[in-house]
């Protein structure tokens, strides 16, 4: 993989800002516009928050590895951890139309990931750990931008 950037940080909430600045800078460098950078940043933040809070469940010695690369018409991000797996199909979608008094707090993370990115895939593997792959489709790069 020739044109990949990778970041590895401890699985702690105080590392989210390092993750966020990394992905923003890498997305910008790959030629994404500022609105798309913001969307990517948010999807990554939600995914990593879930890894820290749910996959590692607060256990602080796990690591998170992000990798990203630009292809001609996509920006691809993978996030890997070695925490516990889960089944995303069992998570109910948030009820965004609910009245305030019956609205469930939380449960927006996975929803944001799906709304802000074009594809989201989960993969769980006993050896390599858990991987979420998120893909953002973008306009093909003109020669000038290179």
């Amino acid at each position, binding site marked *: 993989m020739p044109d990949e950037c990778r970041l590895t940080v401890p699985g702690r909430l105080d590392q989210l800002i390092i993750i966020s600045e990394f992905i923003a800078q890498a997305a910008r460098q790959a030629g994404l516009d500022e609105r798309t950078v*913001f969307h990517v940043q948010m999807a990554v933040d939600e995914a990593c928050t879930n890894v820290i809070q749910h996959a590692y469940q607060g256990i602080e010695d796990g690591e998170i590895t992000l990798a990203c690369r630009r292809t001609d018409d996509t920006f691809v991000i993978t996030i890997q951890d070695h925490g516990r797996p889960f089944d995303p199909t069992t998570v109910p979608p948030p009820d965004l139309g609910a009245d*305030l008094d019956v609205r469930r707090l939380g449960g927006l993370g996975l929803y944001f990931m799906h709304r802000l990115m074009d594809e989201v895939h989960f993969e769980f593997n006993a050896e390599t750990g858990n991987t979420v792959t998120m893909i953002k489709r973008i306009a093909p790069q003109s020669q000038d931008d290179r």
Partner: protein
Amino acid sequence: MALDIDIRNLKRVSVVSIKGRVDSSNAPELESAFHSLMDNGRYRLVADLGGLEYISSAGLRVLVSTLKACRRYNRGDLRLSNVPPRIAEVLNLAGMTPLFKIFDDTVGAVGSF
């Protein structure tokens, strides 16, 4: 890009200016700022989001739980002002726009109580 919370207590209303970045690492900080106000009986709140650069679902959760707490027993409200376009988009995506009274500027929000 850290979180900066500034509280200004007016006669009937408190203005909470939230600047920088709210993610799940510092959302508890924002939550306790709101709690400290409500613990002192202040339930008429304006959140000035003019300087807010980033908010994740953890931050949105704090806004909604504070909104709920303020409106309980009809004792008050949490109103928003100065919402930057990017933050407005996020509120929209989360289906939260209809829940809040949103004002263009803080003067209008304070004066609405």
